[in-house]
């Protein structure tokens, strides 16, 4: 029978990345909410993502369930290890998710749902970053269980990663707004996006310098010959994308900044994959050790290969229907 672990590694890697890109920009719009001037701008910002946000978040549910189905051992170790970051991320997602509906239904208490949208988006993003930071730091494992305590996550590197992701999602959100809006809001978003781009580059630098000292596997992966030559394009391409995005933000290009911001996420994700492969629970359980039984992988793969193309088709259709600039008065249903 063919080995399904590499295929599933790609599918899950892709699914998680889809989540980061898609929910990244709509969480980013939430993080930028307090910087809007007036309810009109906030309406536009929210309406630019209202028709697609719950499709975007569905990729997170897919990530959670697919990790359980495909790499159950990783799920059973990582999720309890991140008990609080995950609970806080979920509460953040709840508070910002309901704001989409409640804000337009509210009259007197609209400002509370503005806060809930901002606070929830910020918390969800920060704690996703904390999850990511802990993932890079690795987990204490004993047999088939997490061996640490529910507060192990609280340490400097994950907190830095949390701030970094806030900056990153805000950059995605700002460049999304450059693409989807016009006039003053667009101009403001351009300015924000340039600052956020600088912030993201600073965080990329800090994380890149910190991680090799944290885990010897990462140092060995990047700084030995011939790997150094193979992986040299990663920082070079990252720098090129950053340069292009910076200039596109300075000119009147609407779409390039968003593509550039997504490009930066692609490169960071690739860097992460290079650093951590072949571990799914760094640095003790490999993808292969954590994989489910061949029968489970095969049963799920058949349907996934059939269903994913449909998911792409109607996701694309939905984005296509709501293409173009978002304008006032379109948010009612």
């Amino acid at each position: 029978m063919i080995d399904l672990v590499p295929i599933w590694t790609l599918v899950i890697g892709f699914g998680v990345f889809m989540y980061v890109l898609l929910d990244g920009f709509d969480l980013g719009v939430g993080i930028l909410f307090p910087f809007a001037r007036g309810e009109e701008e906030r309406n536009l910002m929210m309406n630019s993502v209202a028709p697609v946000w719950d499709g975007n978040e569905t990729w997170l549910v897919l990530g959670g369930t697919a990790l359980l189905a495909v790499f159950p051992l990783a799920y059973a170790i990582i999720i309890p290890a991140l008990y609080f970051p995950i609970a806080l991320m979920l509460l953040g997602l709840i508070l910002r998710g309901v704001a989409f509906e409640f804000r337009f239904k509210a009259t007197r208490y609209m400002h509370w749902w503005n806060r809930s949208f901002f606070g929830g988006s910020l918390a969800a993003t920060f704690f996703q970053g904390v999850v990511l930071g802990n993932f890079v730091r690795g987990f204490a494992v004993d047999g088939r269980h997490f061996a640490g305590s529910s507060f192990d996550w609280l340490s400097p590197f994950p907190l830095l990663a949390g701030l970094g992701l806030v900056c990153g999602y805000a950059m995605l959100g700002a460049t999304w707004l450059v693409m989807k809006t016009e006039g003053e809001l667009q101009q403001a978003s351009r300015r924000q996006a340039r600052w956020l781009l600088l912030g993201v580059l600073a965080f990329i630098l800090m994380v890149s310098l910190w991680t090799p000292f944290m885990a010897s596997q990462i140092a060995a992966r990047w700084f030995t010959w011939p790997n150094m030559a193979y992986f040299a394009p990663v920082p070079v391409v990252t720098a090129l994308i950053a340069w292009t995005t910076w200039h596109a933000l300075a000119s009147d290009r609407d779409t390039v900044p968003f593509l550039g911001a997504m490009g930066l996420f692609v490169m960071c994700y690739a860097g992460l994959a290079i650093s951590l492969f072949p571990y799914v629970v760094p640095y003790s359980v490999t993808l292969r050790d954590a994989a489910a039984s061949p029968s489970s992988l095969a049963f799920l793969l058949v349907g996934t290969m059939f269903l994913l193309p449909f998911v792409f088709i109607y996701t694309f259709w939905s984005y296509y229907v709501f293409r173009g600039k978002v304008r006032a008065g379109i948010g009612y249903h």
Partner: protein
Amino acid sequence: MTLDPVLLSRLQFAFVIAFHILLPAFTVGLAAYIMVLEGLYVRRRDMVYLRLSLFWTKIFAVAFGMGVVSGIVMPFQFGTNWSRYSDATANVLGPLFTYEVLAAFFLESGFLGILLFGRKLVPPWAHFFSACMVALGTLLSSFWILAANSWMQTPAGYEVIDGRYFPKDWLAILFNPSLPYRLAHTVTGFFVTTAFAVAAAAAWHLKRREHVPEATASLKMTMGLLTVLVPLQIVLGDLHGVNTVEHQPIKVAAMEGLWETRTRAPAVLFAIPDSKNETNHAEIAIPALASLYLKHDFDASVEGLKSVPSSERPPVGIVFWAFRVMVGLGLLMAAVVAWSFVLRFRGGMERSRAFLATTVAMLPVGFIAVIAGWTVTEVGRQPWVVYGLLRTRDAVSPSITGHDVLLSLAAYIVVYLVIFGAGIYYMVRLAKAGPPAETEARDAALDERPARPMSGARA
């Protein structure tokens, strides 16, 4: 005092799922209702259906949003609090949960945007198609999640290796013995719940003599549907019970409050079960009736709770009373439906103020019955998380402490009370406001255009 992480994790799971299940209980039926209204409008171009659809779509949007966010919590609960359950069952249940996401969640969320915001951007048939896909998504979701739940009740098609469960026969896993009954009973329950909620809104407007054409149409539709579904639900409940007697006899013994295994088992109408002394207090019972409805034979023997050691019995009182609440409300619903049936031949339901007032009061009944039914089946499965295989207390994450769970549970309670309080408030307010005025609906109808570039420009 030491806090028990198992008990607190159970409370947390019960809390988040009880709130979550209220939303599908409403949206599964409502999605189908909106689909029917959109279909009728596309076919007959009758503005009453359009106004009703616009009205219910607004309420649906609020309920669905709450369903989405409270649903995202669920797949992470298995990991944060029940990692040993996840490790043991993932090879069997993981693919089922994932199929729910791929086949159902994406379908719902992908088309929801068009249903809610796209009426002016796509042709009418495409909007109707989106309504159909959202409704289909909610039904597929019910199938996959109930397949997983049913496997935990009546596991089949697996083998055990080192304390973990591995798939042997996927068809046997999916179509395990209790799935057909649980699926039919649950989905019908969801439809009944929605129908009573829709009927309550209609009756409220009729009582006040406002939105009369829409309210009359929707009251007739829902009461017509309920005339079929409520009796059907009682039959399905009976069949589900018979299935449970076969596969989980101790759960049924708890539901019935039967301690001794005996023939001509009585139907206990009222009792205060006493688990410590293994008996009932203040019992009122009808002789031999339980044997009849459980085994369809007066002389059949029914297993009692004492046939297994007390360590294998569920908490009897909760199961016993939740079951009585569910059945009692079912009978109440049947009475209201019978009343509506009589009124139909006596000049119409919309004229009887007593009937309208009763129908308004029936609003929460379906929801309470769903929660009660869920409690019967889930608490009745205890002390097992996977019936007969894995005990709940062996399923909890080893790393979490009682204090961890207490903290997270408190946070969930605070956030859920705020969110559900606000959501219910907004939905009730929308329901009271009623369908949109003639002009607003005509606007929506006139704005229907085939998709064209930049159609969002008209504001």
